[in-house]
């Protein structure tokens, strides 16, 4: 799956989870850039992503997810 394609599906998930349609995502965006992106929201993101892309993550996949770029790459790889 192409990165732009992943991003177009990922963005609405962020809008829903944070109830904020103005969020814009860049590859270098991190949890510190989005208000309310705490560990609880992280779980919501992960589960929503698994559901939307019909993939499931292993413990290893979830390590080192520091930026939106990491997320995009992981999804692109799993959903290939």
């Amino acid at each position, binding site marked *: 799956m192409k990165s732009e394609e992943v991003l177009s599906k990922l963005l609405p998930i962020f809008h829903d989870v944070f*109830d904020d349609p103005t969020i814009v995502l860049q590859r270098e965006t991190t949890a510190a850039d989005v208000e309310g992106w705490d560990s609880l929201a992280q779980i919501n993101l992960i589960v929503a992503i698994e559901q939307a892309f019909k993939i499931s993550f292993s413990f290893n996949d979830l390590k080192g997810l520091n930026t939106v770029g990491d997320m995009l790459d992981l999804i692109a790889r799993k959903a290939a």
Partner: protein
Amino acid sequence: MIKDLAYPFDPHLILRTKKSIRRKLLEGNTFLDKRVAILGGSTTGEVKDLIELFLLDGGIRPAFYESDYNRYYEDALFPSEELIRFAPEIVYIHTTTSNLAFRHGLDDAEPVIEQNLQEEFSRYKEIWDHLTSRFSCAVVQNNFELPDYRILGNLDSYELHGKTRFINELNRLFSEHARTSRNLYLHDINYLSAWLGLERWYDKQFWYAYKYAMGYAAIPYLAHSVAAVMLAIYGRSRKCLVLDLDNTLWGGVIGDDGLTGIEIGKETPAAEAYSGFQQYVKDLKSRGVLLAVNSKNDEVIAREGFSHPDSVLALSDFSAFQANWQPKHENIREIALSLNVGIDSLVFADDNPLERDIVERYAPEVGVPVLGDNVCKYVEVLDKCLLFEPAALSSDDLQRSLFYAQDSGRKQQQSRFDSYDDFLQSLGMVAEIRRFAPEYLERITQLTNKTNQFNLTTKRYTYAEIKAVAERGTQIAIYGRLEDRFGDNGLVSAMIGAVKGDELHLELWLMSCRVLKRGMEHAMMNSLADEARSAGVKSLIGYYYPTSKNGMVSDLFDDLGFENMARNEQGESVWRCALATYRALTHHIEVKQ
């Protein structure tokens, strides 16, 4: 009610959009504020967020205290400064089978296992006792779900060393204790997980990654069920089930198919299914839920449906009957009026999605479960939406339909008298007005939590608080029961006044709507004045705090001859009456002290 929170749940949708659901729930509604502490034996973050949604949907706006991870025992026994300041009104102990130690080995003898069981039980009992004596709060406690694996296979459920057996025994100890303990409410996680299926319940990845004791998909069901218990404690459960007829209570359209054409009874699978649903509805009625009909039909034809020889429900089971061609949301309003209950205490069951939609849109306070159009699912939907959740079973609940039936008898009587006084006189009313007595504390607590209209301060009490009022000597607290020749209305009124110097401050005065306009408020006030006088009180101080529902008593103190002392911008007012000049109020009730 918000559609996204209707059973059966879409866990992914709820969890993904919980923030916007919350925002919508908070828009323009009025809420009862409650302080809820969650003491968890596993992660509670998501559990808390979703309990909040379901409480908001039921009219309670919670403030939360959340214990640190797995600190439930420490927080209960040695509450932090923060918890003490928070002063919870409800504490939810979210423990699960993951919190059980199962210390015994396969070589341990029976006494060791028995001792482990008792120790485990005592640990929880200690928690409940500490919390209720410290905070006078209600405690909601999970029992235990069955384990995710069984070392002993099927033997696990009955062999002495089995974990399954241990859990079942512990659950039995919990039930026995809860049955006699007034502030403890069990949340039956054991049933809930069985209903959902343990396979769906457990999610080991979710456990190892985030320490949630159940999977993501189970959390909305858990939160919904816990919130239902809390709403029930505060009298927020619904009281009346409003039913459509054609294709809801029987198969077919009686206006077209005729009495012999409708499906009910044992002739076909569908007929049996409709009988099964009628039996469920009848069972609800027998435990105190009122029934009403709301059908687009000719009234005579609609009534005829219950004369079918196989009908489980009889016409006399219904407290209100609206069969006509009016829009259903208008009928619903009339049903609420005729039963004297708030429209938010109704639940509407109809197989037609269009009718459900109209009621949802024009009477949004009504609970509208997604009944569907498959009769085999009706019982499940009504049962699992938990809208009629009872906190306890009081004898008044069991008799409630009778009270309402008697009430319509009274309304018919009324038209045959020249004056209203004549009518009241003819009722032969006898009241018992006395100080709070132990056998009535449960009913009084229930009334303080569900009486909205004739309620001057709308102060809500837990059982423990009412008990404290009854036992403490500093308050004058009286209840009133009312009987008449149509029957016993049960305990219908309560007043609590705090003695301060030579003044009595009325903290609570409420009366059930089923005895409105009968003079009972006069009888109560007279009795309170007598009690106050003999306690050396010189004046009564009354308070009125307006809510969206208690407008009917805004002028009550004025009508009773109290003098207005203060009124603020919110319309809250304070009233005084000097006992030296108090004249007994007139009524037609014989009062037994």
